[in-house]
């Protein structure tokens, strides 16, 4: 099993004819994801790569193909509009890969998505992959193997690094979710931890956080109070200076809040084993399986 994605997921790609959209659509199909439709306004009626029908709107795509999930590869200026459109069309899952979305746009999109009963992952995230089942987004398929470890992370390439090190030691993954590096995101650590707790095939979880905000502290309390499965953690940015944004819009230490030390202490207080280096996660996970 897996979380958020399974054998019944059928995907519509918003921005399928763009540079990123077309490249990653091919990668997702190659990995076995059921891509049933694409959307590019003005290109309705075309067929992408002789196999995926393209529509002008997400609603049409959903009506014609029964798509129940959407992935968004449109430029930042149009990303929130694409999120609204997907929610309106009634898909259950929306994954927004686009980076650079203004926070003010997410401020209105997030409550809308919730009212429509959809789950949004991202924005500014690599998406998710369930080894052997499918992937939505840009996570590289060749580094994962099926197994019992759930991975949830705010990063992109750091997540790949951790997956890679686990896979190298023969430890597989149930689902890997990149929740995104922005301050306002649709799915947080707690949402993923809850899903992993309920997933029968996940036996342990690796949580990869970074500086900025208090999501990791909230997640730590959730692990202590609500989870039976072991969770191990890593926090990036132990050497980051306060007041400087470290690439991700969300990775900034403001005042005394959001430091790596504070997050690592919160993990330890809640019985979450903390890795000093990404490589240490492997041993911590292995001893808990």
């Amino acid at each position, binding site marked *: 099993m897996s979380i958020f994605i399974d054998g019944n997921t059928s995907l519509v790609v918003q921005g399928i004819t763009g540079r990123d959209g077309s490249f990653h659509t091919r990668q997702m199909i190659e990995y076995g994801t059921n891509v049933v439709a694409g959307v590019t306004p003005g290109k309705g009626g075309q067929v992408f790569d002789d196999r995926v029908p393209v529509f002008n709107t997400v609603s049409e795509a959903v009506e014609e193909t029964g798509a129940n999930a959407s992935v968004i590869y449109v430029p930042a200026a149009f990303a929130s509009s694409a999120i609204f459109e997907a929610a309106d069309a009634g898909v259950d899952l929306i994954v927004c890969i686009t980076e650079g979305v203004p*926070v003010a746009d997410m*401020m209105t999109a997030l409550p809308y998505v919730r009212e429509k009963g959809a789950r949004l992952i991202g924005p500014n995230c690599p998406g998710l992959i369930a080894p052997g089942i499918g992937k939505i987004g840009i996570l590289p398929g060749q580094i994962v193997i099926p197994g019992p470890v759930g991975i949830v992370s705010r990063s992109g*390439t*750091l997540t790949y690094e951790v997956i890679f090190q686990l896979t190298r030691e023969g430890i597989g993954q149930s689902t890997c979710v990149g929740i995104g590096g922005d301050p*306002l995101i649709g799915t947080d650590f707690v949402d993923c931890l809850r899903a992993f707790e309920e997933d029968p095939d996940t036996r342990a979880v690796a949580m990869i956080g*970074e500086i900025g905000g208090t999501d990791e502290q909230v997640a730590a309390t959730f692990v202590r109070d609500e989870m039976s499965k072991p969770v191990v953690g890593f926090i990036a940015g132990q050497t*980051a200076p306060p007041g400087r944004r470290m690439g991700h819009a969300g990775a900034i230490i403001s005042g005394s809040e959001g430091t790596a030390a504070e997050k690592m202490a919160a993990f330890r207080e809640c019985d979450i084993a903390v890795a000093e280096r990404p490589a240490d996660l492997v041993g911590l996970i292995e001893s808990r399986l």
Partner: protein
Amino acid sequence: MNIHEYQAKEILRAHGVPVPPGEVATTPDEAERIAAGYGGMVVVKAQVHAGGRGKAGGVKLANDAAEAREQAEAILGMQIKELTVEKVLITPAEDIDTEAYLGIVMDRGSQSDVIMVSSEGGIDIEEVAATNPDAIQKMAVDARYGLLPHQASALAYGLYSEPKLARQAARIIAQLYDAYRAAGCTLAEINPLIATPAGEVKAIDAKMNIDDNALFRIPDVEAMRDESAEDPAERKAREAGLSYIQLDGDVGCCVNGAGLAMATMDLVKHYGGEPANFLDIGGSSNPDKVVTAFEIITSDPNVKSILFNIFGGITRCDDVANGIVEATRRIDLKLPIAIRLTGTNEDLAVEILKENGFEAMTDMDEVVKRAVELAAGPSS
């Protein structure tokens, strides 16, 4: 992006907030002329992207134009939190009866904009939050409806019991919210918001932080960027689409992805080294970006070794390898370099690097250890 007080005040004025007049001077002569124009007492205020300007001696009262000149002379060129003061704002001194705080901040936890008011103004709100949290009233705004009139009114009456003052404050709160939204802010503060003995409410200091991601649609705010307040290397990186922050160490780091870049810096420290910088080259492996990355890293005289840590997912390792080779052809590289490339087209990349005389590694810990050793020098 941060903007200066005088720029934030321009935005506030455009939204109707009562702000005393003010003009910017870059020389003592100008400061004197502006002060003479106002007549009477003025305040000379350092315009620099740092808090605590008052404590640092960057805000001074002047009784007349001659004194304003002296104060400007002292403040211009002064260092506040390692930033040089290039401009001062000259503004008439106001009679103050009470000082309050008014701010709006993007709150991650509630995923909404939160308005904060406190009758304890003129000091850092963080300080009030720590010592007297009950003195702060907060209200989350649902961005779909905007700030509703009764919300602004409730906050205003929390600040002032006098209706004449509260009505002005409610209007200012609504105007500040409009300015916050229009300028793409993640933070907008008026501190202090003053009431004068004559019963007027005014903003006499202002601070705004702008969401970088919103700048593309607010060119008039983007135009307020003060490049002189930005580190030259950081500016060069930004213009090339890279994300760079200089630190104090000697291991120059070049990584793809912000999370991996931070983790790499942490690992440098773990193995006894000190990172010289944060540098995220992003998803692109365009050789020009790699060249710029090299130029930026080598422009820091403290750097003693260069560390490349690339995890190829979307980024192709062979593209980065070609970029490294290209960069070392274009610039005369004297520093030792440790390279790690893993993932998409890794074999090809290792081959390209070997052909050009570089050693390539595939493990993150190994390459970091190597870079730390190289920075420590041949003796160790």
